[in-house]
């Protein structure tokens, strides 16, 4: 066979193989993510199995964890955007393997810092952005602390979770204090503990805490978190202010307000109000202002969709 023909044939064969593989992947999606935790239920056994390559195995599982989390989140986000009824989102088992994957990752490499911190963030996220399991998030961070008790960042992270997701201000303050006791911890942790203990769920205090975190954050994701929280707090403020105006108007005119147009027409508002992320606020049929589910800031803390501590 002449050279150019042979090269073309070879490339066609490779392309053909690719096509077949694509069809195969479509018809038989890989289920190994499910299988792996089932088969090697004991992370300790897995660790012995990959002896010598633990670091690489940990990296592999971390990447799988991210892909699992990211893929599931994207899928649920897409569902939320579509005109499907919210009932489809009621089943919360989509993230069921996330903890297992993170557990394996951190067993293979007990000093895998971002696996602990990011992992906890993923775990604590309210459904549908995450499994909504702050208890598991705390368990993961506690595991990290057993390996490295000097990590004040983990203590601080646990404090946030108590504060933000579980609204247990006493515990949150405890952890902030423990964190501040670790040598090398930043000096704003102690006042933070104090104010948390004193004022609990005060929005102003929250804002102050997040501002201080924003200023001192050394990791990108922490900064992003802080910015997001601050925007959410502003949204809460907005909603309070808007609600006040709506109620005022309703009281004045005796009408039931069900849309922004009436208010805009009455010059109460200049235009349809938007949240800090740019999505318009919604006005329910019974006159309540709320954040749109489509907004990137959804869900706000203190929303009805707030979850209860897992069993």
């Amino acid at each position: 066979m002449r050279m150019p023909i042979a090269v073309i044939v070879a490339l066609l064969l490779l392309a053909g193989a690719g096509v077949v593989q694509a069809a195969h992947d479509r018809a038989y999606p890989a289920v190994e993510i499910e299988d792996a935790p089932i088969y090697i239920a004991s992370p300790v056994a897995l660790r012995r199995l990959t002896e010598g390559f633990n670091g690489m195995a940990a990296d592999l599982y971390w990447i799988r964890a991210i892909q699992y989390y990211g893929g599931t989140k994207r899928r649920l986000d897409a569902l939320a955007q579509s005109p499907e009824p919210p009932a489809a989102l009621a089943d919360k088992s989509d993230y069921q393997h996330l903890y297992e994957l993170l557990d394996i990752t951190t067993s293979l490499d007990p000093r895998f810092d971002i696996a602990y911190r990011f992992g906890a963030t993923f775990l604590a996220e309210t459904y549908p952005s995450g499994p909504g399991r702050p208890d598991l998030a705390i368990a993961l961070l506690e595991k990290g602390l057993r390996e490295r008790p000097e990590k004040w960042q983990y203590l601080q992270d646990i404090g946030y979770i108590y504060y933000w997701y579980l609204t247990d201000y006493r515990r949150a303050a405890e952890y902030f204090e423990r964190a501040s006791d670790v040598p090398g911890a930043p000096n704003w942790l102690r006042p933070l503990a104090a104010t948390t203990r004193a004022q609990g769920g005060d929005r102003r205090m929250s804002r102050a805490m997040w501002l201080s975190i924003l200023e001192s954050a050394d990791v990108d994701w922490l900064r992003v978190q802080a910015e997001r929280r601050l925007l959410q707090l502003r949204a809460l403020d907005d909603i309070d202010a808007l609600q006040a105006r709506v109620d005022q108007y309703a009281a004045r005119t005796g009408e039931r307000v069900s849309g922004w147009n009436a208010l805009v027409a009455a010059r109460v508002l200049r235009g349809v109000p938007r949240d800090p992320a740019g999505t318009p606020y919604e006005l329910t049929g019974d006159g309540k202002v709320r954040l749109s589910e489509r907004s990137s800031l959804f869900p706000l803390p203190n929303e009805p969709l707030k979850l209860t501590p897992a069993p």
Partner: protein
Amino acid sequence: MKATGAIAINVFRESVRDKVLYNLVFFAILMMGASYLIGQLTAGQDVKIIKDLGLAAMSIFGLFIAVFIGIGLVSKEVERRSIYSLLAKPVRRWQLLVGKYAGLVLTLVVNIGVMTVALYAVLVYLRWGVSPAVEKAWDAPALDPALLKAIYLIFVELALVTAIALLFSTFSTPILSAAFTFGLTIVGQYSTDLRNFQDVLDSPVAQQIARGLYWVLPNLGQFDIKLRIVHGLPVSAGYLGTATLYAALYIAFLLVVSALVFSRRDFK
């Protein structure tokens, strides 16, 4: 074509005489020893473990045979100069290559065939005296014919790895060929993770590279259905079909490239 067949038979004869098939003895000993040792566990567990062990051993032994004979197919002949008298005969270079590949595949078939028989023999022994009611409760029966599906895909994967070894041996020394083949085999096992990389990488260039690599590198993970079979989960004929087709196309690709390289090189 007769010439190609003669070359294939010769490769088989060489492997047999080179005591390659002694690995079967080792396999048999391993199987028997393991079944004796774990016969203490509750019935059901030992069957599963023997299946896992048997399939894994088939994979690993087969892999070593595929690589070490595969690289010897050409590299060793070139190094020892036995290829000179062979190429003086009225045989085209590609016929030589295809013949050698066929010979090694034949060796693998025989090897795996014998190992299959041994595995089933051990399973018969383990199932002795176990009541049918108890066996029903297991994930899969002891003498599960579905095991043959897993073994079939192991064989297909080995045929692919052999083709990879053949390709490297057409232009590289035996040691390098072995290293490259093992390396590519390991990477191929984790090709699905390569696809996952896409979701994790930020830059679109890196994503394209990851995606490109995923399509070009051999995807060996799909041939590993050991877990599913042992747990009694179904594997459809369609799955086997597309996996086989993929392997056939990829092997053809490797053989064409091997023939191209081999036909053009100088034998110093």
